[in-house]
C-alpha cells in the first residue's frame, strides 16, 4: 500500500538519495551503503568514528585499530568478529574472516 515514495522504491538497490559518494559505482553487484548511515556508525570496539568507506573492497575502515568491517548486500556488518585486519602488525583484538 506504500506507493508514494519519493525515491527509488522500484529499484532493488540499498541506496537512497543519489548524493552519497558511492552512488556512482559502476558494478551493480556490491550494493552501495546507505549514505545517511555513516552519520551514526562508529567502530563497536573503540566507539570512535570510522576513518572512511573503502569503495574498492566495499568495507568500512577503522585506521586506528587497523581493521575493516565488510558491507554485504548493502548491510554493514558491525560485529567485531567480522572485522578483518588491514595491517600486518596486529592490534589487541583478534579477528577472523567472515
Amino acid at each position, binding site marked *: *500500500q*506504500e*506507493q*508514494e*515514495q*519519493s*525515491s*527509488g*522504491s522500484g529499484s*532493488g538497490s*540499498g541506496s*537512497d538519495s543519489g548524493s552519497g559518494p558511492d552512488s556512482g559505482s559502476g558494478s551493480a553487484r556490491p550494493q552501495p551503503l*546507505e549514505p*545517511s*548511515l555513516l552519520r*551514526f*556508525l*562508529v*567502530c*563497536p*570496539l573503540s*566507539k570512535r*568514528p570510522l576513518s572512511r568507506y573503502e569503495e574498492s573492497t566495499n568495507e568500512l575502515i577503522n585506521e586506528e585499530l587497523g581493521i575493516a568491517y565488510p558491507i*554485504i*548486500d*548493502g*548491510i*554493514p*556488518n*558491525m*560485529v*567485531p568478529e*567480522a572485522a578483518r585486519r588491514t595491517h600486518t602488525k596486529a592490534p589487541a583484538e583478534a579477528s577472523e574472516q567472515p
Partner: protein
Amino acid sequence: LWRSRCRVLLSRPAAAPRARRGLAAGPEMHFGFQTVTEEERREKIYQVFENVAKKYDVMNDSMTLGIHRVWKDILVHKMNPCPGTLLLDVAGGTGDIAFRFINYVRSVRQRQLQRKLKHHQNLSWQEIFESYQNDKFNNSLGDSQVVVCDINREMLKVGKQKAQHLGYSEGLSWVLGNAEELPFDDDKFDVYTIAFGIRNVTRIDLALQEAYRVLKPGGRFLCLEFSHVSNPLLSRLYDLYSFQVIPVLGEVIAGDWRSYQYLVESIRQFPPQEELKAMIEDAGFFKVDYENLNFGIVAIHSGFKL
C-alpha cells in the same frame, strides 16, 4: 519426557534464579530450560533465528492469532513519534516496528502539511512561495529516520526484502550489530526500541547500558517483551497453550519444533515485570514504568535518559 526434565531444572535452587536474571554470573546460562555456557547460548540463539527467519512473520501470526500486530501498534502509539524523530530499533530484524514507525510519522506529517495548507488559504502567492522556500522538511517523513539493528543476517535479509516489497526505502537503514556492543556513537538517538528481542540477548545488563549510551538526553527506551502472568487460572491456560500448541505449530508451519520449544521456554526464564524494571533502572534510566498487555502475557517497559 520434556515436562519431567523441565520440572527438574526448574527446581534447581542455585542455577535458576541466577540464570533468570540474565547475568553471566558463572559460566552457566539458560537456553530455555537447558543449562549451557554463554558462548553456546549465543550460538544456539543465532541458529534458532537463522532457521526461523523466513517463516518468522507467519509463525508470529499463527502463534499469537495475529495479536502481535496489535501489541506492536500499541508500542508505536505509546512512542507517539513526531516527524524528525531518530529511532534505533534493536533486534528489529524483520522490520515490523520500523515500518509502523514510518507509517506513523508519515501520517502525522501529512496532517501537519494539511493544517499548514489550511493556514495558507489567506496568504498571498508571494507569501506561500516564500514559505515553501523556507520549509526544510521537504520529504514526506519530515526527516524522521529509523535504523534497524540486528545480530542475525538472515532476519535482516528478510526485513530488507519486506521493505522493498512493501515500498519502504526513505528514512530506513539496516545494520548488522550486537545489542551488547552497539556500533553507534553516544547520545545519538531519540528513541530506542527492542521488541521481542531482549529475551534473546545473553547479557541483558550490557544491552541496557548500550541503550542508555546511544540515547540522547531526554531520549526514551521502550521494550516490548513477553512477561509474566500473575493470574493463576490464566497462567495455567497460557502454559497449556504455550507448551502444547506452539511447538506443534512450529513443526507444522516452520518444520522446526526445537526452535519454538526454545521460544516458549525462554519466555518462562525471562525476568518478570518488576525485575526487568529494576534492571532498567540499574542502567541509569529514570521514570521507569511498565504496562501489561493481555494480563501480562506481554509488557511494555519504558524509561528515560535524563
